[in-house]
């Protein structure tokens, strides 16, 4: 076999796979067709517009820089690939009000606004796909969702329920300030009487805004929805 044939064969064996699993899918997925809402009664051609509020780009940068993806995933797998959707709060919530069952698999629009989807390496910590939903509905009982997350990031083992958490403390995302007269807005509510206050830095604010944006409870087209559309059929026109 000559030098030339050898290199052509090597390039061909690699190049076919390279085109088929990397290049073509990548460029195909740069433009995704919008999905119709389908059950629209008004007759307009409504399409699904993914919405995410919060400082997605800044926050996901802080998330990436601090290696959160090494322990936390962001993927609710379909049932053929795992039981994620059944785990309480992980795949979404079952609300008692009109919103009904918001549990569903992750779809391609859920990472809108991010450069890189943080699918995650391991689940040493819980999945964060619906962290925003969980904090608002379950964790932050007598405190704002932001304040709950700040406190958790500052010291993940602060409350008895989380005393076994292996999450590192992100104290370095907070600034210590001497209280001069009135305390700053947004400072952590810690039980100490010293004249030092703990104020979240710009990075901490971006990260918390991003974490609260992690929720999958907006209405999605039936083709993207795991739950049976029972709730909508009972409403009278």
């Amino acid at each position, binding site marked *: 076999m000559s030098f030339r044939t050898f290199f052509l064969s090597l390039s061909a064996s690699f190049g076919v796979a390279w085109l088929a699993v990397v290049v073509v899918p990548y460029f195909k997925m740069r433009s995704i067709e919008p999905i119709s809402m389908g059950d629209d009664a008004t007759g307009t051609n409504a399409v699904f517009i993914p919405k995410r509020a919060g400082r997605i780009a800044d926050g996901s940068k802080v998330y*990436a820089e601090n290696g959160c993806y090494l322990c936390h995933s962001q993927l609710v797998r379909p049932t*053929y*690939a795992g039981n994620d959707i059944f785990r309480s709060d992980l795949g979404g919530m079952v609300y008692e009000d009109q919103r009904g069952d918001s549990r569903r*698999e992750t779809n*391609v629009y859920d990472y809108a606004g991010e450069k890189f989807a*943080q699918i995650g390496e391991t689940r040493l910590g819980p999945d964060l796909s619906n962290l925003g939903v969980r904090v608002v509905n379950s964790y932050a009982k007598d405190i704002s969702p932001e304040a709950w997350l700040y406190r958790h990031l500052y010291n993940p083992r602060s409350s008895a329920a989380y005393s076994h958490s*292996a999450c*590192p403390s992100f104290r370095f995302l907070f600034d210590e300030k001497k209280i001069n007269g009135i305390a700053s807005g947004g400072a952590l509510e810690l039980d100490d009487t010293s004249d030092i206050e703990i104020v979240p830095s710009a990075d901490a604010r971006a990260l918390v805004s991003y974490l609260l944006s992690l929720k999958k409870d907006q209405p999605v087209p039936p083709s993207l929805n795991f739950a049976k559309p029972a709730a909508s059929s009972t409403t009278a026109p």
Partner: protein
Amino acid sequence: MSTEISNANLQDAQLRAGIDRSLRHPVMFFLTSGAAWLAVSLILGIISSAKVHSPTFLDCCSFLTYGRTQAAHLNLLVYGWGFQVAFGVIIWLMSRLSRQTCKAAGLVLTAGHVWNLGVSLGVFGILFGYGTGIPWMEFPAFTWPVLLLSYLAILVWSFVQFKVRPEGSVYISQWYLMAAMLWFPWVFATANILIHIVPGNPVMAAGIAAWYKSAMVFLFFTPVALGTAFYLVPKVTGRPVQSYSMAKMGFWSLAVIMPWAGMQKLMGAPIPYFLPYVGAAATILFFIPALSAAVNLLQTASSSKDVVMHSPTLRFTMAGLLGLIVMALCAAFINIPGSTLKLSQFSMSGYGFEILAIYAFFSFVMFGAIYFIVPRITRREWLSRRLIKMHFFISIYGIVLIALVAVFGGLQQGMGQEEFNQPWIAIAFRAYPYAWATTIAWCFILISNIFFFLHLLVMWLRLGRRSIHPTLLISDHGASPHGEDGDIDNCGPGTVTPAH
């Protein structure tokens, strides 16, 4: 007649000595700086593993948080140790096999310094919070062109040497090494350009990162280690490869199957459905190229059991080939869609597999190569048999523990995740004992590699033994402690006995 033979032998030995001399500085630089980065990577690995079970350990500063030390640990293992030792071994093997002295040693050495600069900047970037958040590509984005250009400057000479070599058949080692040398820049440039320069869908970017990681393992580290093993085993035992057609079959099956692997990491993610399944299938099929090469080489060595026991080179290489078999079985075992893949997908199994590939297989073969190459280029023998033995056994204990823990611990963790009625903390408790075992295992491996690094440093400073007796692992008191006379091919012109 006999004078003709000894003349040819003389010329041969002079050529080999010339090649070794021309490559002394770059090869020793790559091996020693690689070993130093390995030690740093292992320290970071211990710190990050300890944090999994004791989160308040070294909980003082931002650069020692788990998310940064773990990323730095893996990137150093890949780019600091893995690539540098591969460079050292590739440029030496390609020169020897093409029978050409290296005429660009200064440039290679300079490019090696640039590579090290890129790695240093990358690691400091990760530790001080400028990481990209892309697994195995965490170095800040500005480093990748630096790494790619220095890579080309280091290895382009090996292509040139191959091109101008004397006519003759091409040995299987050259196939493997040239394939790795061609595929790496292709994979590296593709992943970095698509993720950093051409904006695309974020989920597909994650898919490409998963493919990149798998391509690094199967299309760079695997062929480099196999090419090296196909050189070392016949060379040290003095026997030809058992089945050359099987070797070719193994090579082409690697080339055809492995570029498809990797995207099973995204099983269930919103990317085209066929990608994760193709990835899982290709990874499972890794046993074809792996077993055909490993069995072939083990059979080649099996008729020289004494040599395997006494030669440090062969002992490490054989251990590496056993590591390859375990790695191939593991690849098939943890990637079955619908069965084990959903358990291993987000558990410690993935990390365990990476460590199996990089340490149990690749690094062991590279250690074997280092024990072979260094005495030849420094013209000194290894100082101590005991240090080599310590390096071998402590490394073996460590890696066996890590592999068992990471693979089975990962499956345990995955089973915990599947039990959706159990609280999340139950899964964390399943992982703790395995995390403890991993920390202990990394400590073993660190100790063994500190011995290794010091031994290598002494050799680099040319403080090795001036002797014609190679350092062999013989504990028989009757025999000479340093083996038989003159069985190393740089001991003088005209020696024809097999090398150790």
